């Protein structure tokens, strides 16, 4: 396994009076796509938000490239090269597609070559470049959300359930985009409920349950082992086909 770029050790986090994370231990290997699986309410989204500094860590450590980033303000964490695509995509719907992208390029004007590459990945963005992002369809919004995260080279992408509520054809397009990111060895931590999508893309995998990581390893191990899947995810192979 490659060296890990992000590591969580014993991370605990609360939302209001509820304990959501009870000591999460997670390693995200550099240059790989890691899938974070688990049932609803297992704490996957909170884990991503905690890495980003949006949910306060009450105990434990988050390390990025060896540096302790626990408790740092969100903008500073983002500037270290971590991009976050939340579950609701977080598109600025009153801004145009272009303006959304302009803000995403924090380090100055967008690199035209990289923008062309993004347009190749997601052609609708070029088409609706000067339209209000709020008028895009669900799939197009997800493309914009991911495009924002990759318009500048990042060390790590955190993506929360990109396939949620999308039609199969669009999910297929998204998978294609992630394949390209994988070829470029961009490190991705992907939260997913869609097991087929996960199996297709994931190199490493971690499974969460009840606020902790209960299994982690290679995706192939999980994919080949029906019993393990059944035990960890409550799914038989017949489902989610």
């Amino acid at each position: 396994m490659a060296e890990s770029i992000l590591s969580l050790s014993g991370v605990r986090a609360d939302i209001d009076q509820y304990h959501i994370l009870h000591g999460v231990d997670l390693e995200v290997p550099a240059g790989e796509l890691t899938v974070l699986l688990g049932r609803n309410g297992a704490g996957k989204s909170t884990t991503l938000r905690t890495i980003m500094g949006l949910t306060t860590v009450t105990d434990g450590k988050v390390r990025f490239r060896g540096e302790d980033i626990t408790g740092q303000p969100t903008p500073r964490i983002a500037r270290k090269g971590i991009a976050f695509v939340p579950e609701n995509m977080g598109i600025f719907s009153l801004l145009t597609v272009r303006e959304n992208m302009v803000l995403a390029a924090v380090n100055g004007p967008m690199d035209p070559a990289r923008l062309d590459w993004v347009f190749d990945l997601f052609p609708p963005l070029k088409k609706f470049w000067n339209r209000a992002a709020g008028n895009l369809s669900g799939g197009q919004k997800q493309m914009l959300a991911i495009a924002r995260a990759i318009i500048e080279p990042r060390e790590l992408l955190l993506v929360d359930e990109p396939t949620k509520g999308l039609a199969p054809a669009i999910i297929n397009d998204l998978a294609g985009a992630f394949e390209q990111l994988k070829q470029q060895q961009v490190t991705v931590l992907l939260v997913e409920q869609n097991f087929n999508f996960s199996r297709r893309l994931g190199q490493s995998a971690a499974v969460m349950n009840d606020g902790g990581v209960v299994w982690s390893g290679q995706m192939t191990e999980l994919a080949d082992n029906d019993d393990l899947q059944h035990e960890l995810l409550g799914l038989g192979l017949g489902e989610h086909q």
Partner: protein
Amino acid sequence: MSAHDEMIGQTTPPQGVLARFAAFRENKPHIFLLLLMMAVALLMMDPRTWVLLTISGLAMGAMVFLMASGMTLTFGLMNVLNLAHGAFISLGAFAGASVLLWLSSQASEPSLLINLAAILPALGFALVVAGLLGLVFERLVIKPVYGDHLKQILVTVGGSIIIMELIHVVWGPNEIPVPRPEALTGAFLLPDALPVIGGVALEKYRLIAVVLGLAIYGLMTWIIERTRVGILIRAGVESREMVEVQGYRIRLLFLGVFVAGSALAGLGGAMWAMYREIITAHMGDELMISVIVVIILGGLGSIKGCFYGAVLVGLINLYVGYLEPRLAAVATVGLMVGVLMWRPQGLIPVIKV
């Protein structure tokens, strides 16, 4: 990817005069209301009076816009109710007046150029003093109460009382007369040859206020629409969290907007001082009623709505003040109530997501 490349629906243009009118009313409510108000007023008075009142109303609107624009941004972006905004208006008026009095020899020359040597420093000083106070006020008073409206109201009303008392300490408790610079007194006469409105005298200062108001509206619109900071402000109105996720320190943006808003309030106050030619520490409180009406009317957080709201308030004040002076204040609030019944979010709402 064309399979799911669904087009964003293009609305077909409405057919028929009535339908087009209805569409205009719904799509451009600010322009519809403005035209309606001006037309109704024109029917009720002589055209010469109407021209005079319209220019005066626009001038008042321009100054109220300066004062209100900062508050609408503070509320829209930061969700902060700053009821001390009126105190910044007063402070700007006093700061500007002090410079004008100090440079009174330049201000009393009949040449506009020499006058400007007094006016520009006066306006600049008002801008800087109010902006600096805004900086201190945000750090000291607003910062601890982000996210709690009740506390914001209490603490900013308290802050407002303190600032106004400090004005009494520095400038004394009496009202201060402010001499309007010589070149800005008097009026332009429209040439007699013009049909209907020939010979109408337009006060120079009001025309200048309109021009300055339009210039600042133009500048603010440009900043908000075209620059990166403007995009950030609009993004921040929609989702503060996502602005931070992109790597921007929203607190710094808040502070900048607050300081700019305070500075504009000070500028508006200084202009109002030269307009009224007399100032008191409590002038800001009196103006706050118009300011609050304007920002609610225009739609909280919208610069464009604020501008049109201010113009509408200025016009209705002058029109009704002429037709039935006792109803002028009622008309201002009545306008707000009417607009809110028609459009509860204000004329040009900024949708919070």
